[in-house]
């Protein structure tokens, strides 16, 4: 008689990580204990998480172990299946935060972030439990707002707090809301931009999956402040789990009367809907996002009119980033002065950074505005990997500036970064060591933009193709000064002439790379890659350029 089932994840990723060996070990061990007839072993095609592969699930208990080595497998058979004791230390960490994000605070050597405002609950509460959220001050701000404050007061508090959009541009949130209230139109919308498709960035995801109610509460507060009754969360299609969590959270909040009609008997109604994107980077741009939400091709709209005047369904619309909205409840709860006490004078509050690249500890960190890059690398990133030399960092995502060691000590906030020709953007920090080749880095980035340009306007659609072409020639050792001149010219013009932020910013890594590392580009034009990364003549045939048609 079969008494237990052992399911082993058998997706390609698990297989490459030794799922086959794990199965063999488990089967051998079962045989050893004479359990073959009682325990059935099978492969599962696909499991819903990738951070703990290979995953072993034991039924009927439903215990999940992972990642499991063959030795672990044998041990699980001994302990769990033979002796009936769950092996606690091999259990997969709770699914709360999947991906590397789950590990940052717990990882050996990592330092807790100094100031958690938006991430204060993520990872410590059960995201599927509204009770847990409420226990941790959840929906207090909304309650306070609709019982004790007028919409104007809510808006004024946000304005006074100096909160700036965390989606990239750093636009003052209160001002954006104010624009919406100044329109005659009564049908208004709140849209949460959860498209987060900046490569390597996953700060919004942590909030979405770790603290979904915070976003709902932030949106409801925005709705209350500007007089909107409908909210939409436009979520990156790949974030299936975030999507589920949000749906569940909305459902719970509606059941608790914290969303929906007549919230807390105040007469204020607010509904939230989730809209999943289909995987285009440009749909994070707010007007392309609105087009996509209306069921059209995701391409940016002509501005003016701005979304605050004519947004979703041509009605005034607030589009705010996830992190921006997550800042709102604490601001309402603790007041503008409290918020202003964090961060810098010009840019109050904290910023969530995604640390990537050649540091010892990658992941998310929330620190007050004004933290320097050096602090981020040394304190939170655990220093450079392999004690290599820091070469450059790219801040703000794929279209961010490449910044040299000279800027390591700039207190980072929207204003200071702008003054140094850089941007905070989405808060991605790609740290590169001396092993990095700037040309190669630019090439990889441009490949992304060539693919993600929406194709609407000429400078971006064709400019990215041509920049990539020139970079490709340089990295393959076929480039000349002509390619370099071309590259510089296209980068300059494309950034001036493109229709939307994507095309305007795509050349930024090239422009800033040339600003700080021109010599390296010039070396490539002579056929040398100082970092020894580029293929440089290792391929035959003319690079990039096809024969005359």
């Amino acid at each position, binding site marked *: 008689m079969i008494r237990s089932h052992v399911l082993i994840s058998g997706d390609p990723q698990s297989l490459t990580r030794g799922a086959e060996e794990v199965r063999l070990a488990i089967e051998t061990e079962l045989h050893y204990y004479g359990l073959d007839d009682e325990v059935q072993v099978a492969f599962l095609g696909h499991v819903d998480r990738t951070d703990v592969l290979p995953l072993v699930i034991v039924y009927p208990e439903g215990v999940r172990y992972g990642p499991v080595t063959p030795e672990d497998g044998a041990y699980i058979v001994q302990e769990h299946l033979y002796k009936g004791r769950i092996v606690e230390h091999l259990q997969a960490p709770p699914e709360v935060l999947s991906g590397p994000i789950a590990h940052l605070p717990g990882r050996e050597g990592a330092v807790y972030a100094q100031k958690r405002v938006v991430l204060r609950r993520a990872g410590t509460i059960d995201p599927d439990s509204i009770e847990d959220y409420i226990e941790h001050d959840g929906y207090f701000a909304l309650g306070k707002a609709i019982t004790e404050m007028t919409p104007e007061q809510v808006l004024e508090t946000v304005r006074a707090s100096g909160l700036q959009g965390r989606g990239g541009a750093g636009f003052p949130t209160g001002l954006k809301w104010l624009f919406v209230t100044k329109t005659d139109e009564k049908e208004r919308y709140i849209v949460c931009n959860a498209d987060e498709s900046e490569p390597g960035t996953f700060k919004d995801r942590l909030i979405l999956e770790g603290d979904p109610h915070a976003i709902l509460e932030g949106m409801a507060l925005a709705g209350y402040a500007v007089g909107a009754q409908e909210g939409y969360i436009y979520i990156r299609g790949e974030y299936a789990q975030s999507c589920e969590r949000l749906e569940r959270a909305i459902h719970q909040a509606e059941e608790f009367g914290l969303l929906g009609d007549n919230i807390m008997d105040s007469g204020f109604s607010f509904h939230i809907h989730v809209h999943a994107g289909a995987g285009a980077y440009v749909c994070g741009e707010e007007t392309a996002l609105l087009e996509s939400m209306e069921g059209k*091709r995701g391409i940016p709209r002509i501005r003016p009119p701005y979304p605050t005047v004519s947004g979703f369904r041509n009605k005034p619309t607030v589009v705010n980033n996830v992190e921006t909205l997550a800042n709102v409840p604490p601001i309402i709860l603790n007041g503008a002065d409290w918020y202003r006490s964090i961060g810098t004078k010009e840019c109050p509050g904290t910023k969530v950074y995604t640390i990537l690249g050649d540091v010892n500890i990658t992941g998310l960190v929330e620190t007050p505005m004004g933290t320097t890059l050096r602090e981020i690398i040394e304190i939170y990133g655990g220093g450079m990997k392999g004690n290599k030399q820091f070469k450059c960092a790219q801040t703000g995502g794929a279209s961010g500036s490449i910044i040299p060691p000279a800027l390591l000590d700039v207190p980072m906030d929207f204003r200071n970064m702008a003054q140094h020709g850089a941007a905070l953007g989405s808060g991605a920090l790609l740290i590169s060591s001396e092993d990095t080749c700037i040309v190669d880095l630019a090439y990889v980035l441009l490949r992304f933009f*060539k693919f993600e340009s929406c194709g*609407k306007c000429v400078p971006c659609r064709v400019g990215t193709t041509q920049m990539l072409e020139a970079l490709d020639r340089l990295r393959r050792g076929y480039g000349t000064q002509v390619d370099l001149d071309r590259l510089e010219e296209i980068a300059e*013009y494309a950034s001036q002439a493109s229709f939307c932020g994507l095309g305007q910013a795509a050349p930024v890594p090239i422009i800033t790379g040339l600003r700080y590392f021109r010599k390296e580009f010039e070396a490539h034009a002579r056929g040398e890659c100082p970092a020894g990364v580029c293929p440089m003549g290792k391929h035959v045939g003319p690079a990039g350029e096809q024969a005359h048609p």
Partner: protein
Amino acid sequence: MSEIHLTINGKPVVAQSGQTILEAAKQADIDIPVLCHHPALANWGACRMCLVEVKGMRGLQTSCTCPATEGMEVETETEKVVAVRKFVLELLFSERNHYCMYCQMSGDCELQDLAYRYGLDHWTYPRPFEKMEVDASRKYFIMDPNRCILCSRCIRACSEIAANHTLGLRDRGARTMVVADLDVPFGESTCVECGTCLQVCPTGALIDAKSAYGGREKDVIHTQTTCMQCSVGCDLDVVTRYQRLLRVDGVWESEPSGGLLCVDGRFKPLYEKRQRVTGPLVRKDGKLVAAGWNEALGIVAEKLQSGSCQGLAYCATTDEALTAFARLFAKVDGAAGRIEPQVAPLGFGQVAKVQDVLDADVIIVTGAQPLEYQRVIGYFIHRAADQGAQVAVITDDENGLSARAAMTLTSAEAGKAVETAAGAGKVVVVYGTEIKPEVIAALKPLGDEAYILALDPARNAQGATAAGLQPQEPSDVDVLYFLLGEQSEDAALLAKVNGAFKIVQAAYHSPLVDQADVVLPTPIWVERTGHVTNLDGSAKPLHAALLMPENVRDEAEALAALADMIG
């Protein structure tokens, strides 16, 4: 709208508030180059050719989208602007196959023009483009994606003007391309071959199959006339060269269709296969043989006076011909009538203009199939529906408009359409000969507020009505006179023709012509002068774009000559 004042290139310009910089410049005769912009289409802002510098504004502005404001100072040809335009052109030339030498648009291409204007004298960038397949699956025009600059004019034309939504873009980035439906060959798509996309394409990407390589703009003659293929009567721009018919375009900002045409007006007449009657014919020894006009008219005049006679006309000719026809038969005391049925007035409502469909709030369609027979009206109804009009189709059969109508009702349910119309703003009733009496009765409560558009099945039906020609059947007379013009008789008419002496005035050979005793030739649409009256009662001029064949005479003139001979 209020007046605003700005300066462009130092020149003071007066514009209306709400106008873009581009529009303001155009009024002041300042030329700002564009590629994706087209005055008949919504602004797009994608090609970046129209970038200008505005004092006080950060970066460059697209003049096609940037509203002109009071006191604005605009510069349209600064060094920076010119450099960016040249850059954009260089990129476009690198993107696809723009080897102008082998392009049928060479000389008339907007892209090429701008390349000359901004001095492109070599390829600046490598051209890594992939070759794409030419799509010639549609009969009348061809799509060569290798020449496409992705300006999206065609897409906007298809959506905004034809309201057909066939065209769209696939993929993104460098792989973006114009496609029909979900990337099917054009010939298998939902395209209705109205040709609007073809007309707006600035390059050689959409090519007319007939006129390709037939002559450049500087070689051709344009003649504006009225389409005679249905009762809507759209304005046509007929393009000819050396007496050869090359192409037909729509005329922007004209009444009634604003530039929109349909396959029947734009393409089909250029592919006429019937054999032309090129001179008068008389039957001698049982055979039709060529004759002179005097001889032929002499026989006709004599016959008309020798016994009972009846004249039957298809309405598809000029107002002048129809009037002359009626007059001739009055003179010889013969009956004269039209062959096609007539649509009866409803007895309520006010006469609508075709354009009224476009801003209607409710459109009720019954007893007519505009998508088949008055296509532009069908497209207008689609367009109105796109803009939020409620369309109610009342029919007991199938109707192509149902697919995009808010409701399709049976005759018995016609009252529901009236309910929908109650309280709505502008109501337009579009109906045809198949309207049922019970539907008329049900719609009556709409009253005189409603706009009524009667879709006559006959071309120039209003002209025939004005000439007093009512529907008639061939009767038992000695002489039957058929004015066919370009329309060959249908089988039903042919079956009713008796043994009378038959005179047929027609442009093309047909069984009836071949049975006739005397045949008089007529001009065809593109050779006509005179007028037609369209379905909303507008008198529309006809201008000959081609000369008639040597031995052909205009009907009105021939009929008048006959009347004179009869004295």
